[in-house]
């Protein structure tokens, strides 16, 4: 049975890597393309490998390559070399590790064994996230300070002050949530949300605890140093903030770390407020019981959606010059899409025909939950990007006002209200 254990652990780690590290280039791409579309322009769409542009995704890889091969320059006035070097690593590693406790799927049962579907199988997920999210700001503070430069120092001071003021409200918002859920284990929290309120509304955190949800979303924007709270970078005021002096892959680590942190925040938001890996109205047990119906639904829906998507590709994925090799891409994409459809439909068809064992059902359900989680994660990340290209940056005093005078009192009041409600009506 050990082979199964090891393979599940490896799959979990690969999934965690994919969702955090692998997501970074995709998120950079999403950010740039979405920014383009929001501002009525195209965004990066030119870079290609043998004509394949994948909608501009190749540009992200080109940028990463560029960062790797750039000169790693360090200004002569930087004395604290060790701290200067270690700062981006702290940011990156803590963002990366904080992702490791997000559950991608319900506990997987293979034979007699049960596996927690997380990168690290820990059952104190929320606390782990808070600890590491608090740690990542050390990287920013140390990096800004060791740069020995007033703009960098200003950036890191801002980051420190901001995280102190927002982490308080974030944790307090979490406390009221934890009172509601009665557990700090993320899998328990997600399973709590698989129920229904009044029989038709999914019992998601955002419906149970709307105030805590809003506070948590606002503060995690601040935690991830994203607009409208990116005053630590504030390129219009303090050059580049804490990463002014950084170049090449040291800057790259800050850059990727920011996206991984954003992805981790989104994952936590999805887990806490949007039902995690739950498909709305369909719990894990329902999925397992009616697996035939689910397969038939997929066999019908997948080709329909693919047909729509293929039409969209043919309409929009064109290059203005007729004889350019970029114009061959759509043809190949359509072929790949058709092949994938045939494969999935045949596979599910054979399952339907021959029947499935309990283990296969469990694995298939886990795969569907991972896919659900991935989709929700992408949507949440999209919200991060969407907000960034909508809202302007806060002024420093407004930021502190909002943190201390608005969010903190509301989150404390929310704890009281929640506690009273729990005591009065029972858990």
């Amino acid at each position, binding site marked *: 049975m050990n082979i199964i254990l090891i393979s599940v652990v490896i799959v979990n780690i690969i999934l965690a890597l994919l969702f955090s590290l692998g997501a970074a280039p995709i998120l950079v791409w999403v950010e740039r393309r979405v920014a383009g579309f929001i501002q009525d322009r195209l965004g990066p769409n030119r870079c290609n490998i043998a004509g394949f542009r994948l909608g501009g995704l190749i540009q992200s890889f080109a940028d990463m390559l560029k960062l790797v091969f750039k000169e790693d320059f360090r200004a002569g006035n930087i004395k604290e070399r060790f701290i200067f070097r270690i700062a981006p690593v702290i940011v990156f590693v803590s963002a990366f590790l904080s992702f490791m406790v997000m559950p991608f799927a319900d506990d997987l049962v293979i034979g007699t064994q049960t596996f927690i579907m997380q990168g690290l199988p820990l059952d104190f997920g929320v606390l782990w996230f808070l600890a590491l999210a608090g740690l990542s700001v050390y990287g920013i503070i140390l990096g800004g300070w060791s740069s020995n430069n007033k703009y960098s120092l200003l950036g890191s001071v801002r980051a420190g002050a901001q995280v102190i003021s927002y982490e308080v409200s974030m944790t307090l918002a979490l406390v009221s949530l934890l009172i509601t859920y009665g557990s700090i284990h993320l899998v328990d929290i997600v399973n709590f949300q698989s129920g229904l309120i009044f029989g038709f509304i999914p019992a998601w955190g955002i419906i149970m605890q709307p105030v805590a949800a809003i506070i948590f979303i606002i503060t995690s924007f601040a935690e991830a140093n994203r607009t409208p709270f990116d005053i630590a970078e504030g390129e219009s005021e303090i050059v580049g903030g804490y990463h002014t002096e950084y170049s090449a892959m040291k800057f790259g680590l800050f850059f990727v770390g920011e996206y991984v942190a954003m992805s981790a925040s989104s994952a936590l938001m999805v887990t806490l407020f949007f039902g995690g890996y739950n498909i709305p109205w369909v719990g894990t047990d329902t999925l397992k019981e009616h697996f035939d119906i689910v397969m038939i639904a997929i066999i019908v829906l997948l080709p329909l959606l693919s047909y729509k998507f293929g039409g969209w590709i043919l309409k929009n994925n064109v290059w203005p010059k007729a004889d350019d090799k970029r114009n061959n891409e759509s043809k190949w994409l359509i072929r790949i899409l058709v092949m994938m459809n045939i494969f999935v439909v045949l596979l599910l068809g054979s399952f339907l025909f021959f029947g499935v064992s309990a283990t296969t059902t469990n694995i298939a359900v886990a795969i569907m939950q991972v896919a659900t989680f991935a989709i929700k994660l992408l949507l949440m990340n999209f919200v991060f990007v969407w907000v960034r290209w*909508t809202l302007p940056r806060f002024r420093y005093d407004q930021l502190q006002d909002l943190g201390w005078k608005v969010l903190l009192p509301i989150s404390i009041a929310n704890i009281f209200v929640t506690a009273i409600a729990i005591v009065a009506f029972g858990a």
Partner: protein
Amino acid sequence: MGIKIVPRYGKSLKDRLYLPAIFGGMKTTISHFTKNLIDTSNIKTECYPEMQPNDITDRYRGVHRLTHREDDSVRCVACFMCATACPADCIFIEAVERTDGMAEKMPAKFSIDLLECVFCGGCVEACPCDAIRMDTGIFTFIAEKREDFVLNKEQLLNNTARKEEN
């Protein structure tokens, strides 16, 4: 004299909640996003260099050209007015005597350093006999060496006015 009372915003509860305004803004941006995602041809971006700009006006100051007389000889009389007017000091002229009776002088050499030129159009304004113009519509000039950016008399004479494309 009328007094205009400017309404002050930001004091009502709705304004102070921030969230309605934020959601309003997000609605605007998402509508742009979905419109452009569904049909990218809504976007006006031109994929240069595959698509060339088509909105260059007649008055656009492109790379210079030297104009010709009716018999195709050079119109310039080497009066140095343009070189004097040029704020960037990038016009270099060497004059010789003109023997065919059209004028007294003509340029033996006439070169413009495009790396120095600020495309102000001062030379065109200064010329007393319409010998230099900037109506070629050439908005990009590429070369590999610095020396290649200095256009000589023959190159300037060979530049032609931009054709109206319709």
